C-alpha cells in the first residue's frame, strides 16, 4: 500500500462474540479530506473509529492510518492522530488551562510551552473561560475545548465521533469553521455526525448500515445517484427500508 492515503481500510471486520459490529468495510481517505461517516445508532461507526485509533484490535482485515498498521504500529498511530470521543471526556474538575496543559504534557509539548499556550488561548477563543472550571462551561464551549486539546499536537489526522451532539446551531457553526480551517491547513478530518447539514459540508461521505458500507461518494454524487435533493433524504431513503 502507498502512503498517499491518510486512512486505508480493506475488509475490516470486528466481532464481539457472535455479533458482527463491522462487516468487511473497505474505504480510503485522502490527505486533507473531510470524510463524513454516517449511519444509524449502532451501525458500527464508533467501533470503526476505535479500531482506527488503536483502541480496539480488529478481528480481521487490513487498516493503515497515516501509513501505519493498526495491528502492529498502534504507538506510531497514536502520535499521528487526534481523537474526540462522543462522550465529553475532559476533566471537569480542572480549569480550561489545566486541561490544555495536561494534554500538552501528555503529548510531550514542553518546548516553548508558554508561547504555545498563548497561541492556543488566542486561536481557540477560549480566553474568557481560561481559568474557569471546565464543568461550568456551556456545552458548546466544552466541545470547543475538547477539539482544542485533540489538535494541540497538530496531528495530521483527526477523528471526531459525533463532536456536535446536542450543540446549538451557533456553536456548531463555530465548530465547523475550525474544522474547515484545519482541513485547509492539510489536516485530514474523519467525522461522524447525525446532523445531515453537516454531512453536506464533507468532501466525501460513507454510509454504514448494520456494519456494512451501503454508500460511498461525494455528497453531490450520492444525491444524484438516489435522486434526492438533500443528504437527509438520501440517508433516510438508504437506511429506512
Amino acid at each position: 500500500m502507498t502512503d498517499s492515503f491518510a486512512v486505508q481500510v480493506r475488509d475490516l471486520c470486528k466481532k464481539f462474540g457472535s455479533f458482527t459490529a463491522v462487516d468487511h468495510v473497505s474505504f480510503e481517505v485522502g490527505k486533507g479530506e473531510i470524510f463524513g461517516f454516517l449511519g444509524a445508532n449502532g451501525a458500527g461507526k464508533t467501533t470503526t473509529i476505535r479500531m482506527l485509533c488503536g483502541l480496539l484490535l480488529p478481528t480481521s482485515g487490513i487498516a493503515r492510518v497515516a501509513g501505519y498498521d493498526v495491528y502492529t504500529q498502534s504507538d506510531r498511530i497514536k502520535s499521528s492522530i487526534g481523537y474526540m470521543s462522543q462522550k465529553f471526556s475532559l476533566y471537569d474538575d480542572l480549569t480550561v488551562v489545566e486541561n490544555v496543559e495536561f494534554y500538552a504534557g501528555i503529548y510531550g509539548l514542553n518546548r516553548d510551552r508558554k508561547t504555545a499556550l498563548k497561541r492556543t488561548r488566542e486561536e481557540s477563543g477560549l480566553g474568557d473561560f481560561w481559568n474557569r472550571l471546565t464543568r461550568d462551561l456551556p456545552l458548546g464551549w466544552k466541545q470547543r475545548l475538547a477539539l482544542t486539546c485533540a489538535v494541540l499536537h497538530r496531528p495530521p489526522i483527526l477523528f471526531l465521533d459525533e463532536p456536535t451532539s446536542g450543540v446549538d446551531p451557533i456553536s456548531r457553526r463555530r465548530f465547523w469553521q475550525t474544522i474547515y480551517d484545519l482541513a485547509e491547513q492539510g489536516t485530514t478530518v474523519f467525522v461522524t455526525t447525525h446532523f445531515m447539514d453537516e454531512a453536506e459540508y464533507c468532501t466525501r461521505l460513507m454510509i454504514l448500515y448494520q456494519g456494512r458500507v451501503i454508500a460511498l461518494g461525494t455528497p453531490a454524487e450520492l444525491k444524484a445517484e438516489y435522486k434526492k435533493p438533500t443528504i437527509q433524504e438520501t440517508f433516510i431513503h438508504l437506511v429506512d427500508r
Partner: protein
Amino acid sequence: MVSRIAAIMIKEFFHILRDPRSLAIIFLLPIIMILLFGYAITFDIREIPLGLLDHDRSTESRALAQSFAASGYFRIVKILSNPSEIETAIRRREIWAALVIPADFEKSRQTHAVQVVIDGSNANTAIIIGNTAQALLLDYSLTRLQTPMNPLFRIEPRILYNPALKSTNFIVPGLVAVFLLMVCALLTSITIAREKETGTLEQILVSPITALEIIIGKTTPYIILGFLVAVAVLIFAKVVFSVPFRGKPLELMVLSLFYIYASLSIGVFVSTRVRTQQVALMVSLVGTLLPSIFLSGFIYPIASMPHFLRILSLVVPARYYLQIIRGIMLKGIGFNELVWYAAVLFLFGSVLLGISIKSFQTKLEG
C-alpha cells in the same frame, strides 16, 4: 516520558486539591476508625458497673466491698436491698455483676460463699469478670488470714515491652496498619476506575502514553498523600492513646513508605481489573480489611493459625508492617532488624505493579 508522567502527576494533584471533602475523608476516615476501634476493641476490663447486696452490713463486709471498688476493675454503682433486685438491674444493664455478701460474713470465721452474680450475655466479659472477682476475693482472704501462708512456688512474670499489658498499646498500632492499607488501596483503585467510567481514560489512551507512564504518574502523588495520612494517623495514635514510642520516629516513617507503596499497588492492581468505581471500592475494601484483620497477626497470632492460613498470611502486607510498627513503637528496635520486612513490602508492591502494568490494556477491551 518524564513530561507525560509529570502531566499525569500534576493533574492528579489538582484532582486531590479540588475536592476538599474527599481529602478530609481520606484523613478523617482512618482516624475515626482508629478512635472507634481503639476504644471498642479492648481486652482489658475496667470500671465494671457492680451492684452490691450486703446482707451483713458490717465493717468486714464494707472492707470487702471497698477492696473491689479500690481495685479499679469494679465501680459500685448500685446498692441493692434484696436479691430480686439483682436480676432487674442486670436486665436493665445498670450493672454487669452483683456482689452478694452473706449475713454472717463478719461473725463466722468459716469459709463463706460470697456470691458474684454475672451477666453472661457477653461470654467474654463474663469470664473476665468472674476471673477478676475470684482473684480479688482470693487476694482479700489472704490478707485477712491470721497466719499468712507461704506458697511453695510462685510465678513471677516479667513482661517486656508492654509492662502494663495495656491492650491499646497492642491494638492501636495494628489499627494503624489496617486502616492505612485500606485508605491507600481505595485511593488508587478509585482514581483509575473513575477515569474508566467518565471516558477520560479513552482520551488518554489515544495518545502515545504507555501503561508504565500512566501507572507511575497515578501512583506517585498518592505515595505522598498516603505518607501524610500515615504521619497524621501515627501522631493521633501517639497523642490520643498514649501508645509508647520507644524507637526512632524517622525510621518508622521511612519504613512506612514501603508499606504505603505496597498498599497503593493493591489499589492499582484492583483498578486494572474492574470497570466501575463501585466495584473498585468493594473489592479493595473487602480485599484489604479482611486479610489484614484476620491474617496479619493483628488479633490472632499467626503461630496458632492452621498451616494453610499461615501460608496465606505470607502475602498479607499488614503482617510485615505490624512487625515494623510494633517493633519500633513498642520494642524500640531499629532499622537493622526491620529492613527485611520493608524489603518484602517493596517486593510485594513491585510485583503487583509489574503485573498491573503488564495487564493494563492501552486498549479498551480486556
